[in-house]
């Protein structure tokens, strides 16, 4: 019985993990994609814990999801700002 329950739990883990990965890949909004990637990283940490690899789970949660996510959010913000600046100069160039 408990083995069956665990199997269901594992299946939910795997299906959600792949769902999060696909959602992050196809998301047109970069910020949204990064947030989905962070969720993916935290979920992956659960999967590593389930595979009895607590070292990898810790590293994944701290670096993959936490710091990687923070860095990517900062990069996305910077890229959006750069895009806005470039757009303004382009518009000015067309006017002139």
């Amino acid at each position, binding site marked *: 019985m408990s083995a069956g329950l665990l199997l269901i739990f594992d299946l939910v883990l795997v299906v959600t993990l792949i769902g999060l990965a696909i959602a992050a890949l196809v998301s047109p909004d970069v910020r949204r994609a990064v947030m989905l990637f962070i969720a993916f990283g935290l979920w992956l940490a659960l999967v590593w814990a389930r595979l009895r690899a*607590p*070292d990898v*789970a*810790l*590293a994944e949660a*701290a*670096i993959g999801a*936490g*710091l990687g996510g*923070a*860095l990517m959010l*900062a990069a996305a913000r*910077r890229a959006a700002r750069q895009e806005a600046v470039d757009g303004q100069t382009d518009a000015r160039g067309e006017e002139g």
Partner: protein
Amino acid sequence: MRRAASLIIGAIITALALWLLWVLQTALDMGAGPRLAEQAFAGLPTTGVSNPVTAVLLSYRGYDTLLELGVLLAALLGIWSLGVASPGFQPAGVVLSGMVRLVVPLLVLTGGYLLWVGGYAPGGAFQAGALLGAAGVVMRLAGDETAGLPGIRAQRWLIVAGVAVFVLVGLATLALGQGFLSYPQAWSKWLILAIETAATVAIGTTLAAAYVGGRPWSHAVVGGRD
């Protein structure tokens, strides 16, 4: 055109995933053979640590970990070469700064715990360093422009500390007539601990400095680009 490209990329990735699944299945079909895990456990008593993961990272494959620290150092040098850091966020409100005051010491404490516990249980330099880096990120989010990092001179020392201590230990073992990074058994635990401590500080500083996102030593406008 773009659609075709994304379809091709999708097909390649799917093929790659199927190939990986096939490799995994073949590996599982081979059954229990001589694996690296047994050898790792067999050599464990000679390494001075009882956590097999730490033994692999710092004793069996110390060279790899040294190069990983080198990669982190190179990445930060790349970030610093890109331009000056952007100005920080505005000072946090009462609630956030109260939380930061609570969370940052907790993160530093947990980092120290993970570093120490890495000798015999899951933990180690990378996880501990990530927690220190996270403390820096939290502080920068709350309005501290330098992410809690010390001055630039100290920052440079802290960032090379990981690689420096690693290489110095390696050279010392070389001078003692052993191989590069093959520790004498009696000293093994303490050498590993020294390397891990330096690595933790270096990783934490590097990650926090990476989040600051530019070289911190000049906020002057350079070349009109920034």
